[in-house]
């Protein structure tokens, strides 16, 4: 019989979420109390401390792996990995936003609060093993990003971006939810382990296939996989630049975590060609459409579609190879993309005036540091060795080849070559074109320097000595995949009602 009240270990296993919520609330409470000028520094600092505390608590959480809250969440290497990842992304985001918010003259309080609250959702997504919780945390992360996307309230594009994201996001959520309902209908459970057990025993009900399809629509939308990617460019273009860096990585990573759990742990039936096709479409559409973009934010949006495609390639591979590849890729992509957006948001200046390629002309001369850092991020996005991007791709394609997905790999590498073009275009513009109009480049504040240094270090670290990371993700993936064998867990505890037979 389950204990009637949660015990200490239960709380430890959601410690990061608790800590982040507390800090979020603290910001919320403090916001009206401090005046405009100080709020930026104070609340931003508080947010920063919050994320740091979140990291520390994640470490504490990691010390006691296991289930909590009656099989609602599971703490293992896998969830720890994504906890650290999303919190770290948020950390960099806060560092980047510091200056950005001041330049854009935006109110700070709710912003940092929303980030922290959003983090709660994303963290929970990675550790939740119950579809109810997954749904709610998914909504938390989504709604907070809807709001963040519309944060530049004076700008028509920002609110439009927010609206589109919101409408389509809710639309997709409805699909996801319908899928959950069907899955519940097919297996009689909303717990992933139970679902997995049901699906792996005997013939898979047809309803489960439909459920998978609908859930894939919802999650595919969140990770911007084709054909559910179309919202991405519009939303990314309109949303505030640092937020784009955030929402192209953190919620995405969390969504991938969910996708990993659902697809691999639950061993989703009939997924292969679905993922294959989606991967190919994502890579190709993303890369091809990016070729003629001259808005950098939009360009990076298309690129994020393509990267989602590369990640999906790993989903088509054998689970034990694909899962670590996905994890590594999300981390590497986070490092380089957040970094790239940090540069973009710094350059964007007031009202995000300077976000077209044209504005980047001559950057190599006017600000070698920014140009150099951006170049490294772009090189990593292209996937040239000793950057994280290379190993990310390498690992994905290696997993695919080991699973004999030759064509998928070939399409993938060709795509990464196509992709090289538009990243290169930015480099070319920065170094080889002369600026036609004077684009003011503000001095780089300390926080941004820190953000750039962090992302740069991560990008290079993952490119030069990826070994530890790879070992770690392999072990976590192992845990994820072996979960069903090791846990002889009791059924979800609503045993009060007897199960009916059909």
């Amino acid at each position, binding site marked *: 019989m*389950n204990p*009637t009240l*949660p015990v200490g270990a239960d709380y430890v296993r*959601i410690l990061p*979420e608790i800590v982040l*919520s507390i800090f*979020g*609330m603290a910001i*919320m409470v403090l916001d009206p109390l401090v005046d*405009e000028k100080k709020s930026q520094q104070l609340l931003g600092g508080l947010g920063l401390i919050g994320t740091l505390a979140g990291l520390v608590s994640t470490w504490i959480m990691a010390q006691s792996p296991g289930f*909590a*809250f*009656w099989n*609602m*969440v599971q703490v293992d290497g896998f969830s720890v990995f994504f906890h650290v990842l999303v919190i770290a992304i948020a950390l960099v985001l806060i560092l980047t936003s510091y200056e950005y918010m001041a330049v854009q*003259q*935006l*109110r700070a309080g*709710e*912003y940092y*609060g*929303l980030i922290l*609250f*959003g983090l*709660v*959702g994303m963290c*929970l997504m990675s550790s939740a093993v*119950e579809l*109810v*919780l997954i749904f*709610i*945390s998914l*909504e*938390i992360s989504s*709604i*907070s990003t*809807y*709001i963040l996307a*519309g*944060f530049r*309230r*004076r700008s028509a594009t920002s*609110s439009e971006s*927010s609206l589109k994201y919101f409408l389509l996001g809710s639309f997709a959520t409805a699909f996801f939810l319908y899928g959950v309902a069907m899955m519940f*209908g097919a297996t009689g459970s909303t717990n992933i382990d139970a679902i997995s057990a049901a699906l792996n025993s005997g013939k898979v*009900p*047809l*309803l489960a296939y*439909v459920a998978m399809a609908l859930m894939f629509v919802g999650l595919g939308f969140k990770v911007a996989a084709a054909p559910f990617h179309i919202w991405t460019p519009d939303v990314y273009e309109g949303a505030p630049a640092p937020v784009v860096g955030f929402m192209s990585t953190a919620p995405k990573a969390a969504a991938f975590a969910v996708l990993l759990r659902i697809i691999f742990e639950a061993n989703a039936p009939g997924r292969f060609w679905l993922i294959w096709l989606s991967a190919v479409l994502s890579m190709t559409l993303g890369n091809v459409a990016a070729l003629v973009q001259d808005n950098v934010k939009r360009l990076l949006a298309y690129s994020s579609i393509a990267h989602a495609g590369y990640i999906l390639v790993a989903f088509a591979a054998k689970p034990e190879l694909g899962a670590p590849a996905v994890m590594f890729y999300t981390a590497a992509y986070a490092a380089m993309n957040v970094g790239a957006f940090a540069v973009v948001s710094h350059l964007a200046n007031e009202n995000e005036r300077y976000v077209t390629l044209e504005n980047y002309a001559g950057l190599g001369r006017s600000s070698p540091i920014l140009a150099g850092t951006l170049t490294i991020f772009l090189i990593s996005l292209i996937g040239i060795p000793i950057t994280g991007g290379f190993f990310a791709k390498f690992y994905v394609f290696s997993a695919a080849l080991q699973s004999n997905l030759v064509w998928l790999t070939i399409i993938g590498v060709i795509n990464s070559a196509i992709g090289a073009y538009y990243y290169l275009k930015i480099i070319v513009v920065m170094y080889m074109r002369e600026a036609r109009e004077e684009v003011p480049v503000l001095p780089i504040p300390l926080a941004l320097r820190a953000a750039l240094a962090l992302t740069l270090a991560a990008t290079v670290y993952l490119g030069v000595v990826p070994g530890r990371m790879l070992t770690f993700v392999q072990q976590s993936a192992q845990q994820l995949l072996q979960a069903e064998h090791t846990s002889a867990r009791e059924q*979800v*505890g*609503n045993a*009060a*009602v007897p199960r009916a037979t*059909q």
Partner: protein
Amino acid sequence: MLHLVLFLVFGAICVAGAINLLVQSHPISSALSLVVVMASLAVEYLLLGAEFVAAVQVIVYAGAVMVLFVFVIMLLNAGVEERTKGSRVALILGIPGVLAGGLLVAWVLIERTGTATVGLGALPGFPKTIGNLLFHDFLLPFEVTSVLVLIAIMGAVVLASRPEPKNPEKES
């Protein structure tokens, strides 16, 4: 038999409301149609035994949430819909897609779950049982919804306040 009749009657109201939602051109009418749908759905929930859910459906959903809608419609002074032709994709691809998808799902539902039947009040969802679940097994999601609500409040504050930073007026 009664069960079936009730199901059919309220199901028909439900569908009629949904279709009315689609054909009405004024948002207020659509919103009210949705209230009709919700109300009749509440009856369907009752038929299935989900008393608590039916109650919440009427009180919270139809009562509170829809009021918010109506309030906003009034606030924004939304008039009759313009019939702009902004999207061919939605008509040419979307509608057939929905119909095809819907039919497929319907086929699956009929084909694979056809034999199972439920009686009147098949699974009684009394508030107490629901409450037990909610504060024990589903304690964490329940608590987490508080974060969700916090976010919603903050979002409303951020988005609906007047953009001028000098005189922040908070509405909602």
